């Protein structure tokens, strides 16, 4: 079991990581090896103290090199759920692995995932984010899948084996590679609606498509879904000045806590979160 698990390898996550290494903590950092895509994509940064006018690519490299020089290892596995078990945290990853840590620092950045109208209201009652979890509840029943990346096609394929019918809405350009039994609708969903006690529908500009359950599968996970029970204010995780969230032992820092979305702010908050987690 690690002392601290850090979710995110951007400036907030790496700043937290180096601070914890300084305090001899046993840590795990989850995220892309190269760091934050957002930083890398930035054209030029002029307000990161100590480094006048630097490209995003160069700054990201400096962050990665600094962390590596202190022995920080980045595990490229996407955390899909964090369970607060009381005395420790269990982290579920996309690879299927389960990690455990006494404390968690959430530095996952800001997600672009905005819920569709009706999505939050119907979640758990005919709207689901997890095909593997809920597919058996819809055995022999018609379902709809809204996939935000080609990766989600595997989930649609799995559902097609269990459900009576699958209607797939690809929210991306690439043509889906799916069995003939899956009906592909190339229309952009605009809302999810309730059509009665057990029936839901996906609404698009062209019409409505009924299903018993609508699976909404996105790549990014909103913080409140990633950590069940976490208090958020819209997309931002609520923290106090010590970066503590409402869940004891779980801290948040960087873009995930809200504006301003600045690298210097992220690094500063990462530092604070690490010191709080090390107590």
């Amino acid at each position: 079991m690690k002392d601290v698990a850090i979710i995110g390898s951007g400036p907030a996550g790496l700043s937290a990581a180096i601070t914890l290494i300084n305090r001899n903590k046993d840590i795990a950092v989850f995220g892309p090896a190269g760091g934050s895509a957002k930083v890398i994509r930035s054209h030029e940064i002029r307000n990161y103290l100590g480094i006048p006018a630097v490209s995003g690519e160069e700054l990201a490299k400096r962050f990665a090199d600094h962390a590596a020089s202190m022995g920080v290892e980045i595990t490229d596995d996407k955390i899909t759920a964090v369970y607060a078990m009381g005395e420790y945290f269990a982290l579920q990853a996309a690879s299927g692995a389960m990690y455990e840590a006494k404390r968690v620092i959430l530095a996952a950045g800001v997600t672009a995932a905005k819920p569709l109208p009706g999505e939050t209201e119907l979640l758990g009652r005919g709207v689901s984010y997890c095909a593997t979890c809920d597919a058996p509840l819809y055995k022999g029943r018609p379902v709809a899948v809204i996939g935000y990346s080609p990766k989600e096609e595997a989930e649609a394929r799995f559902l097609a084996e269990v459900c009576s019918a699958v209607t797939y809405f690809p929210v991306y350009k690439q043509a889906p590679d799916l069995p003939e039994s899956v009906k592909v609708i190339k229309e952009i969903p605009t809302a999810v609606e309730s059509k009665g006690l057990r029936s839901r529908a996906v609404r698009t500009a062209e019409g409505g498509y009924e299903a018993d359950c609508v699976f909404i599968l996105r790549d990014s996970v909103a913080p409140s879904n990633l950590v069940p029970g976490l208090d958020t204010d819209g997309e931002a995780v609520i923290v106090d000045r010590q970066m503590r969230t409402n869940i004891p032992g779980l801290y948040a820092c960087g873009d995930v806590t809200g504006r301003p979305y600045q690298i210097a702010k992220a690094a500063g908050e990462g530092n604070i979160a690490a010191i709080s987690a090390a107590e």
Partner: protein
Amino acid sequence: MLTTVVNNDMSAINASAAAFVDLNAVWCGPCRMLGPVVDELADEYDGKVDFYSVDVDENPVIAQQFGVSSIPALVILKNGKPVASSIGFKPKAQLKDWIDENI
């Protein structure tokens, strides 16, 4: 203590003054994570609240009665009447608050 419900038998749940029902399934990840938390709560509330575990595959009639469309689903009943329900994993501290507010 935690009782495993079988054969769609609601009699014990209905007879309890205060019952906490955990609706789950073996194939459900979050349900498995909630299991140890519910076990601990059952011990802590021993004598005050009766805890029940209902596998929705083994007890489909009960699952339908509670209108379960997503699991884990938790229901608090007082003398057989549902007074509160919750969907999904919740941290132990929050479940304790939820139980205290509703029993």
